[in-house]
């Protein structure tokens, strides 16, 4: 099955630069340059008959450069096979083309990827965070983010202070109180 998948992919991508990567699980895997991503994805969606984008995620290879690796997995319902596409991005201001115009369901994955890794998707209409609060300011799945967080209660504290001021309570807690334990 894998060989025919690869043939189909090669035919669909004829004329484009791409790399065939080895994958431990045997899934056909392609490496693309960031500027080719959208053109290649468009061909995979139409000529390659990959009708579903299952996931968009990223890997952070921190000490290495290029630092981020975005991973897409595509499923062809008609042919019952999958392909994995990878693309390396630089560490500062990583950005790549959005595929949400080809597969609208990718919007959520791309928003999550922005939230957790700070990767921008050009062409994504709604670039809000998915899980963390909008004013959070960090991207927690990056390797240089400490797992206990950077001042995790900050947003709650700001909200609490505003609430107290609004309701006319003294703003004693939490900054002014001494910790009791």
């Amino acid at each position, binding site marked *: 099955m894998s060989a025919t998948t690869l043939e189909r992919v090669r035919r669909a991508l004829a004329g484009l630069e791409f790399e065939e990567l080895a994958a431990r699980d045997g899934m056909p895997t392609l490496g693309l340059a960031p500027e080719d991503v959208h053109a290649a994805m468009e061909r995979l969606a139409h000529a390659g008959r990959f009708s579903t984008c299952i996931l968009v995620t990223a890997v952070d290879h921190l000490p290495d450069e290029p630092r981020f690796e975005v991973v897409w997995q595509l499923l062809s319902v008609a042919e019952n096979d999958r392909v994995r596409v990878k693309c390396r991005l630089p560490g500062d201001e990583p950005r790549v083309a959005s595929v949400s115009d080809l597969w609208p369901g990718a919007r959520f994955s791309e928003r999550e990827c922005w939230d957790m890794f700070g990767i921008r998707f050009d062409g994504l209409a709604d670039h809000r965070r998915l899980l963390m609060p909008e004013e959070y300011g960090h991207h927690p799945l990056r390797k240089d983010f400490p797992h206990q967080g950077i001042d995790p209660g900050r*947003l709650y504290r700001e909200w609490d202070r505003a609430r107290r001021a609004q309701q006319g309570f003294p703003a004693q807690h939490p900054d002014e109180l001494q910790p009791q334990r």
Partner: protein
Amino acid sequence: MGTLNPVEETGQSGFFATRADFLVNWGRKNSLWPMPLGLSCCGIELMAMIGPKFDLARFGAEAARFTPRQCDLLIVAGTLTWKMAQACRQIYDQMPDPKWVIAMGVCSSSGGMYDSYAVCQGVDSILPVDVYVPGCPPRPDAVIDAILKLQKKIARESPTGRLAGTGEAIVDEGTGVLHMPPNRAVERSTLDLHPHDPRARRAARESK
């Protein structure tokens, strides 16, 4: 409270105040209306507790209401994330006085195993908690035990003293651990850290 002191010792007014306290406390403690704040897995155990098998109605606390304005017992059952913390505090603020809080499970007592950026390390950093229930999740019996302990605690309160302004002040705050790094008490070895964590890299640099 609750016992009758001889009239000669306390005088007429003291005698009356004690009786009123006892009566009010008796009413309060035997008809707690819980606000079930089921945030994750502990919420399932909370449902089992209110259901027929464990039957919280035996202790008068089965009338769970899903609006805080009708409740006087907040049961925080589950992992409180920072995003949820605002809603939790708002629910607490909307409950009419007098109100009590049970932190059910290690997650809401101390953050539990979620030593992470997203989880509030114990509801007691944003609310005053009366009874903590350990366990992951605690069995319904353990939570029922917590409710019995809370009933004993309520029986010691002095509502008339509160009315007259002589009772203990109503504490409306958590313990103020908000601004401390989570689990500060646990000494961390840099070996526990991910090799790319800045603290691990700093330690490696310093040890060279």
